[in-house]
């Protein structure tokens, strides 16, 4: 296990992504809402560059009393990483696929220290 320097704090703009090559492994470091997330840049579906897509909130069906459909809404508390190849979606917080909990992205620990961001590879 080694700490790999990703950037100085603030070098990745809010909402931005830096893809780094750490030996054989390509890792996407995502900055969202001031927080950093690091995942292997590899979608378990067909191998797409999962961190290179957009992030979008999950979508909810809002059902009212008596089972009546009211509308759809974005769930701003649940941001998804969306693979740009096929739109497979994963929760940003833990990398778990939104449709099947058995499918998940490989997550790396992010360490912020001394004004810099590192990932533990």
């Amino acid at each position, binding site marked *: 296990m*080694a*700490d*790999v*320097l*990703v*950037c100085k704090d603030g070098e*990745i*703009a809010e909402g*931005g*992504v*830096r*893809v*780094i*090559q*750490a030996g054989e492994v390509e890792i996407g470091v995502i900055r969202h809402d001031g927080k950093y997330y690091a995942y292997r840049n*590899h979608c378990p579906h*067909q*191998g*797409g*560059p999962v961190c*290179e*897509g*957009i992030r*979008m909130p999950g979508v909810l069906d809002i059902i009212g009393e008596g089972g009546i459909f009211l509308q759809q809404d974005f769930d701003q508390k649940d941001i998804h990483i*969306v693979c*740009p*190849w*096929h*739109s497979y*979606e994963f929760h940003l917080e833990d990398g778990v696929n939104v449709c*099947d909990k058995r499918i998940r992205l490989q997550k790396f620990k992010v360490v912020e220290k001394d004004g810099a961001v590192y990932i533990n590879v």
Partner: protein
Amino acid sequence: MPMDTVDFRDLAVEEFDTTTMLKHATEQAIQRRYEDFFIADIDGHHYETGSFAQICEYIEDPVMRQQAKYQGFGGSGIASSNGAYQELMGRVTRYPGRRKEKTPTTPHRDITLTKRWMDAIGIDYVCMFPTPMLSLGLTPRPEVEVALSRAYNRWLCEVVLQNEPRIGSSLYLPINDPEASYQMVKDFGGKKGVIGFTICSPHYKATYDNAYCKTYALIEEMGLPLVYHGAFAWGGDQSMSLCNRFLAVHALGFSWFNILHCTNWLCNGMPERFPKLKTIWVESGLAWVPFLMQRLDNEWMMRSSEVPLLKRKPSDYMREMYYSTQPMEMVHNREALELTFKMMNAETQLLYASDYPHWDMDLPSTIYDLPFLSETGKRNILGGNAKRVFNLEPIVSEVKQKRLAARGTA
């Protein structure tokens, strides 16, 4: 590890580029040594709307030409008749990215972009189809379908196929006009790169009608296949109008229209009437094939008197037809997929298709990594079957030639 030794890319400053977006596909191609065998993609697409101004110039009727130039191809907004919101609100980044991607002045942009993704994925030869034109058969004026499809086919032959040996096409037939369909085959059948003729499945004509028989006979005589390409209809179709989510329209529509035409093709004994005409069912996935085989065989055992031309079970004829792989229903049930492959004699009847750049595209690895296929079976599906069915000359892409040379095996 100090920062200056770590390779990195900041996505915010990158321009969209197909080769970069498909870098992982290229890694798959290298790992699996796709340079060792021919890969044909029998269903790749381009967006003909990007060249619509050029295509308009090929419309023969001057009034129709002016209408098309003024009016454009079609509306694709949320309130359009097909209601489409297929592009997933930007989730699949090649949709918005494609429009901004830079290409040199020559060759034609569609050739450059097509070869870019073919090379990244590992494809040597592609059968190119349009995109919005797949629904042209639903247009209310048959003369518009005829004029636009003739213009498109002429443009495609002169601008693309004539100039790029790695791109072929199975040309669009204006199915609402049987005579114009026949004329299309006569006029374009011998052109360079024309490897078949295509009926785009969403339309409301019975393709067993006697009016089409001379067209089928001519395609058969030419030794070319007849392709049925799946697609969806929404606003104009009473059943599909009951769907309010595109997932439902897409999942049903792309299979449904081919299920419908394949059933009619069989029930009217077309395989007996045109025994050498090869039919290929494209972009409907695979799961419908075992369903239809079982369903029709069961009914046939009780009602064979209605379809006396069929000398064998419907499934026997279906096992002699051809199918494209994509979108392969591979979610979680390998056993079902293996049985499907067995039921359709996949090793000789199945043809790889990527459907790139559409959102549900499949890479060659979806076939190459299947554990139940033999190496020969994989290579047949990825290219050998297409070579046989379309009478293709095997081509090795420049990228693969370089890889072979680097290995000292060129």
